[in-house]
């Protein structure tokens, strides 16, 4: 178990967070969202609210609609029904430019044809519709420098991204999102393919971003243990939201199986490794 992770337990944060939460503005509101693709219902009747400064983890087995939910929230998939508002705006609205950061699975997995340094990559995070025709000014350069320092890649700022380790590439991708000044960061499986030590340091980074920088974080992950340790709230998704609540109260595996309508935890159809908490 990765119990040696040096972050404050989420229960404590909850206590502190509860005070702010009353006044925190709503960052995200999803109501009655359903997405059907090629005749198949992927997600059904999702209702979800997130406040500014919250760290929410979305967990669920493969094909449970996690990525579909996030891609719909971001505005890349058209829902059949439902409403999505981010800071009171429809997805992809102009007013949201620069307020949202997206760290996709592809972000740390650049095509091998691309030769680019960490600094050049992070700089791309500062490009938006109003400055894309101009060379980076001092403010953008400062943001790039700060973002690289924040994720701990200062010594590697002129290194070719393809020469970095998986965890370092993930950090570079997070830095790119940070450099855009995003308040709300979406991450899709940032912990895949990294070793335990790297995983813990990435979680520490996300925890810092949430608590010290007041970033709102919505993260998809297979890693239930990680989510329990870091997120304020966990959403268990399997076409519908089966659980939505504080991570401290997240059901154990037997309860989870019951929620999912599965009699036996060791059912061959589900892969639950209790040893490392990966669904």
């Amino acid at each position, binding site marked *: 178990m990765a119990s040696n992770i040096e972050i404050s337990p989420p229960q404590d944060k909850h206590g502190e967070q509860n005070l702010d939460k009353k006044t925190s503005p709503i960052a995200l509101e999803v109501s009655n969202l359903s997405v059907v693709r090629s005749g198949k219902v992927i997600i059904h009747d999702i209702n979800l609210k997130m406040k500014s400064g919250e760290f929410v983890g979305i967990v669920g087995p493969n094909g449970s609609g996690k990525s579909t939910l996030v891609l719909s929230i*971001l505005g*890349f998939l058209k829902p059949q029904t439902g409403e999505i508002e981010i800071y009171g705006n429809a997805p*992809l609205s*102009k007013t*949201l*430019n*620069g307020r*949202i*950061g*997206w*760290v*996709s699975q*592809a*972000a740390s997995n*650049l*095509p091998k*044809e*691309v*030769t*680019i*340094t960490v600094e*050049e*990559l992070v*700089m*791309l*995070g500062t*490009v*938006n*519709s*109003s400055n*894309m*025709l101009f060379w*980076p000014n001092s403010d953008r350069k400062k943001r790039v420098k700060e973002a690289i320092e924040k994720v701990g890649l200062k010594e590697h700022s*002129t*290194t*070719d991204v393809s*020469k970095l380790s998986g965890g370092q590439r993930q950090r570079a991708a997070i830095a*790119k*999102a940070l450099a*855009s000044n995003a308040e709300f960061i979406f991450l899709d499986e940032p912990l895949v393919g990294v070793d335990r030590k790297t995983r813990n340091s990435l979680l520490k980074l996300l925890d810092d971003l949430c608590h010290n920088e007041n970033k709102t974080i919505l993260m998809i992950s297979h890693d239930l243990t990680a989510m329990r340790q870091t997120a304020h709230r966990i959403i268990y998704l399997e076409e519908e939201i089966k659980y939505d609540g504080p991570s401290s109260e997240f059901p154990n595996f037997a309860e989870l199986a019951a929620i999912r309508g599965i009699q036996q935890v060791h059912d061959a159809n589900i892969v639950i490794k209790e040893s490392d908490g990966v669904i």
Partner: protein
Amino acid sequence: MGIGVILLELISPLLELLAPLMPGDTFPIFFKLKMAQRSLLAAIIATIVAGFLGTFLIMKNQALMGDGLAHVSFGGVAVGIILGATSPLWYALLFAIIASICINELQTREILTGDASIAIFLTGTLALGLVLLKVAEGDSSQFQPLAQIHSYLFGDLLVMPEDGLDLIVLVSIISLLILAIMRNAILATTIDPLAARIQGIPVRRVELLFGIVTAAVVVSMVKVVGALLVTALLVTPAATARQISSSFRSSLILTQIIGFISVIGGLYIASEINSAAGSTIALVTAVIFGIVVMTKSIYNVAVKKTEN
């Protein structure tokens, strides 16, 4: 007087100054004679813009886009010749831009993958061109469009008319400006289109503009190296640079250096051994690629040995 001719007037004295320093028997002509100076300028300018564009094409994994559009432009040239156009390259430009937009649309709508859509347009318009030319030729011995088309397939750098130079310089300068200004937006779109869209970059418009620039550059290069060899200048220097660069900036700079060496070296060899300029330049780019890859492998093996 077009922009190409004006530019040549400006640098012509410099070239004449360099002429006595140039090696070889025939090669110095490129620095002395106005007509040959036009060829030299066209080749250098086309290589500069091809290098910049090629770096992006390599990163987008669209190395064959240049080849595809070159063949499309051949179809356009054929139509232009049959319609009796004095500058069939304008038809080529129109064809290439339309094809580029269509290929882009097929890809973004996920109707076809990149390679397949390029292949269809490549062969389709090439076939159209050949069919039309053959039909137009008929039994007439006077009108021989197939002979005219030769220079567009293999390039005819040494016969560079003033309006040809004007077209190349105009297209190159506009394309270079667009690529320089849009550099970050194109790169962000290439690396992660969804993230770019979220940041507020108009991804589709950027892609469209990039496609149009690619089409224009390819057409302007057809006259220099020929439709069959456009890829040599567009892709090979950039691919060579990628082998030895560690940043986007260094790959841009190295591409320019390799491109420049290829053009000058290719023209020198062509003039001394009396070979075709376009294909010699293309050959030099390939040889440089081979040398770089081999040297790199030998170097890597040597480094591994010393480490052990």
